[in-house]
């Protein structure tokens, strides 16, 4: 065992990379849940985003187009969920599950001819002087653009929910859809938009895994990250900045266990690989005592009786 081989600067830099897919998916789902909708299909939308982004990037040679395609694919899949729950009034839990099962199959089908290919590289940004600083440079100024986009998105969502009119309407719909409807807000339209936003974010998160973090395509490669993102929203008490904190925490756990595996710690690899999931459970237990911040209409369908 050689722990000195672990470089703390690289550790933090790779922690941020590991956290970004989680953060993107969690921020999207946070907005969806703020609107009162529980979409359990995050895992399915992520994996479809992962392959759609990967395939588009490979075919077009541009990772940027890949990310756009991933967001579109995620949003398209989420529309299916919206049709089921908002129009057909189907149970949200069952619909979300079906989205995940369908997405896993669809991605496997789409990805058959892309196994073992290397995608085009998304370069890291390079700011003269700043990026070359020791320690601070690689951590703060040496990442790809999507990572910064994730942080900016967190800030934007925080601002939107807290200060904008749109955020207020969104929260009203999530807290009490009947009251929001009585005030003349289009509950279904707002929820549809929120669901599509969540789908696009999940798609981006998935593409981040297949294009930057791994970067490769393998079946089922999201390996539960979508579900951890769902747990993260609970962890964050539906607050964007806490989602960022949580994503970095989980990213940290993932990266540390991978580093420990590489360093050859005496703990068997399988037990290290379990750790992110076990820690998710423990965190859920600690935080589930307080449910006061959950949107009041979460998971309930809305049907205007007249």
């Amino acid at each position, binding site marked *: 065992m050689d722990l000195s081989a672990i470089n703390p600067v690289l550790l933090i830099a790779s922690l941020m990379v590991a956290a970004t897919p989680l953060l993107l998916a969690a921020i999207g789902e946070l907005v969806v849940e703020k609107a009162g909708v529980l979409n*359990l299909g995050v895992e399915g939308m992520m994996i479809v985003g992962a392959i759609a982004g990967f395939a588009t990037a490979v075919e077009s040679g541009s990772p940027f187009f890949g990310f756009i395609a991933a967001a579109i694919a995620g949003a398209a899949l989420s529309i*299916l969920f919206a*049709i*089921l729950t908002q*129009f*057909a*009034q*189907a*149970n949200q*839990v*069952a*619909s979300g*599950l*079906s989205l995940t*099962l*369908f*997405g*896993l*199959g*669809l991605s*496997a*089908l789409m990805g*058959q001819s892309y196994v073992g290919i290397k995608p085009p590289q998304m370069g890291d940004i390079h700011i003269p002087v700043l990026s070359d600083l020791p320690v601070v440079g690689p951590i703060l100024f040496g990442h790809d653009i999507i990572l910064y986009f994730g942080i900016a998105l967190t800030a934007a969502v925080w601002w939107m929910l807290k200060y904008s009119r749109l955020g207020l309407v969104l929260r009203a719909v999530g807290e009490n859809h009947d009251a929001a409807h009585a005030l003349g807000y289009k509950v279904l339209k707002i929820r549809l938009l929120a669901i599509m936003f969540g789908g696009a974010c999940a798609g981006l998160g998935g593409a981040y895994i297949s294009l930057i973090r791994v970067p490769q395509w393998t*079946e089922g490669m999201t*390996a*539960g990250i979508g*579900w*951890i993102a*769902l*747990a993260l929203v*609970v962890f964050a008490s539906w607050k964007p900045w806490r989602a960022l904190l949580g994503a970095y925490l989980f990213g940290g756990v993932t990266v540390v266990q991978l580093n420990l595996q590489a360093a050859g710690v005496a703990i*068997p690899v*399988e*037990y290290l*690989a*379990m750790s992110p*999931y*076990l820690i*998710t*459970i423990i965190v*859920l*237990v600690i935080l*589930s*005592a307080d*449910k006061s911040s959950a949107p009041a209409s979460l998971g309930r369908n809305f*049907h205007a*009786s*007249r």
Partner: protein
Amino acid sequence: MIRLEKRPQPSRAWSMATPLVAVIATMIVGGLLFAALGKPPVEAIRTIFWEPLFGEFSFYYRPQLLVKGAPLVLIAIGLSLGFRAGIWNIGAEGQYIMGAIFGAGAGLAFYPSESFLIFPFMVLAGAFGGWIWAMIPAVLKTRFGTNEILVSLMLVYVAEQFLASVSLGLLKNPEGFGFPGSRNLQSWDAAHNAELIAGTGMHWGVVAALIAVIFAYVLLNRHMTGYHIRLTGEAPRAAKFAGVNPTRLVLFCLGTSGALAGLAGLFEVSGPSGQISIDFNVGYGFTAIIVAFLGRLHPVGILLAGGLMALTYIGGDIAQSNLQLPAAAIQVFQGMLLFFLLAFDLLTNFRIAIGKPEVA
């Protein structure tokens, strides 16, 4: 103007008809998908649904129907109890794995004894393995209010890692020339879940699945616990006033579904699959969710839905070898089925009305 009017009561007729409508819709859209993949659509659908039952080699495929259907029905029956009460165990895959590990481990501890007690002991251990794995989300939910959906699902990934660990370590075949995986239980008579009647596919898992169907039917229709389950699902507030104990209900529903999933795992590992290996699980725990919904959470419906889903597995395999239809296409097909079912359920709860609403 077309609008939706909520029915005073869900339509019984539509409730029975939607699974059929969903299957037909899936066949049509699935056919289009196969056509898009460059396969003859009608031929593909025929291969999946007709070939295993009445085709040239149906003598081989028909027994497979029982082999593949039994674990699906066994797991789905357990899940349906919880789903009816709004208790969502979606980690059956993990409970299935743990049942297999516990059951196989309990048996292998006595290798190479030929006692007739070994198989019954393995069955108990398998049920216990699934039960204990499901008790984790159950206890966390009742003690701390933790979301059982997320916990049970996280435990699937934990169970998969544990499976990898035991097939490389604890349960590895000492005479396996270093290959991962346990001893083959098929070649050890005392632990082999053999066919009860040769050539029929009928093994103890099929018997257990049929017993589970009857058990669930009696429970739901003739027993207080079953009544509480239905009451909690259909009218949670009324259930509260009627004095239903939610803690007991959660423990019962998750525990039963875990034990049944564990049994399914045990019967699979000691029979058709034969050994614990890294990729022992094939997703029955997730497909069973589709089976439970397709069967309308009703025991008899689940029996039929399990058969249908087993058919798509077997037909999918045939289509894979005959038409080079990718395996993932069948997965999409199964996912689509649940989509259409949920969508057409609209007609069970709502009536489509044309014209302006009457002014009350």
